């Protein structure tokens, strides 16, 4: 749940917000990630009014209110604020009419003022609202940035996800989150992974304990957040398990409704998962730059076999 107080805490400075109604509680829930200006609602036309949105009174609204008599102003604002709005914003440091204060107090709707212009205010508040309302989940796994590709390592506890990420960090790649990844969805197809605030930059290495990765390897070893691009499942070696041998059939895993390509790496002692992980990342980059290794080899093979077959046919009809 996001409240007006949360918004003020995260964005108070960015939006240059000032609370005008100190006595009113800011513990009011924001239910939709949208902001608008009331416009015609102030003139009494409430038919299409979406009251659950956030509302900003811009210069047009304030100029309109100013043109009204004090009684009309109270009536107009009372209609507007009767909808139990989360709060009301006034932009561009405009002076606030006395009637707005009295109606706001009566309806217990806090009034906040910003020194930004209305359009700037809209532009800066929108990303925050989108983030606050985007679907989120927690994934048990470790996230690393390998050559710019976000690899999410999953697999049973103790299989070596953290050790793999530590090895990657040692080789110049970056840790994003160890053990628990907070995942949020942006738009319809992008997943962003972040660490838990408390444990960020730390990882647990069995036998050693908790280690501070950025203290050990420097600032380059840690990254605040990263798009999740490939899921790498570390699995116990099992002959019966159906593991992709060609890379032609890309499997995917559903996270928050986004299908993320998934690679399963079966483990045996002595296997260098770090190098394999680097290849997974590079192969992903290669695929997205238009080169599909597995498909290319297969095309070459199919062509060769067709040529061989044609030659055989030609020679078989050669009765000299």
């Amino acid at each position, binding site marked *: 749940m996001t409240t007006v107080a949360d918004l003020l805490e995260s964005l108070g400075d960015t939006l240059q917000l000032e609370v005008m109604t100190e006595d009113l509680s800011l513990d009011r829930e924001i239910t939709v990630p949208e902001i608008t200006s009331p416009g015609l609602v102030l003139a009494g036309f409430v038919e299409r009014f979406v009251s659950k949105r956030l509302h900003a009174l811009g210069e047009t609204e304030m100029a309109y209110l100013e043109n009204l008599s004090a009684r009309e102003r109270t009536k107009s604002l009372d209609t507007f604020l009767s909808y139990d709005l989360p709060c009301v914003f006034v932009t561009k440091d405009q002076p606030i009419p006395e009637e707005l204060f009295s109606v706001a107090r009566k309806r217990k709707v806090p009034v906040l003022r910003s020194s930004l212009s209305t359009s700037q205010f809209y532009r800066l508040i929108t990303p925050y609202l989108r983030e606050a309302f985007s679907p989120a989940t927690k994934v048990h796994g470790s996230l690393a940035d390998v050559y710019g590709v976000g690899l999410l390592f999953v697999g049973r506890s103790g299989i070596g996800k953290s050790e793999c990420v530590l090895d990657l960090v040692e080789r110049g790649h970056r840790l994003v989150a160890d053990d628990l990844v907070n995942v949020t969805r942006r738009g319809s197809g992008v997943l962003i992974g972040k660490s838990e605030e408390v444990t960020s930059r730390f990882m647990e290495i069995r036998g050693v304990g908790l280690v501070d990765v950025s203290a050990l390897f420097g600032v380059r070893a840690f990254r605040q957040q990263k798009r999740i691009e490939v899921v790498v499942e570390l699995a116990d070696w099992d002959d019966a398990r159906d593991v992709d041998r060609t890379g032609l059939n890309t499997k995917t895993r559903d996270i928050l409704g986004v299908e993320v390509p998934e690679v399963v790496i079966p483990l045996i002692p002595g296997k260098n998962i770090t190098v394999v992980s680097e290849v997974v990342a590079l192969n992903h980059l290669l695929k997205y730059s238009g080169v599909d290794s597995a498909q290319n080899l297969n095309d070459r093979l199919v062509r060769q*076999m067709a040529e061989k077959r044609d030659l055989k046919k030609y020679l078989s009809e050669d009765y000299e």
Partner: protein
Amino acid sequence: MIEGKTTISNQMGLHARPAAQLVKLAATFSSKIFLDNGSGDVNGKSIMGVLTLAAECGSDISVKADGTDAEKAVQAIIDLIDSGFGEVAGEA
């Protein structure tokens, strides 16, 4: 060493997808498995090995296995090859 012979019957030949099916099946047996289409044995459990055969449709192939489940392995692999790898004609 058990040996059996068959002919590749699927139109596209032994390209990557059927090769992957074959090595996956081969991996389920404990016997050593080899394939040969006239240019020497390749490891039947290795995708790169099986691909080097470049065994086109109509080419003869011999399947060899050595181990406790050799007989079963040879039969299973020949059955898979003869099934045409479930490939629909004309599909890569």
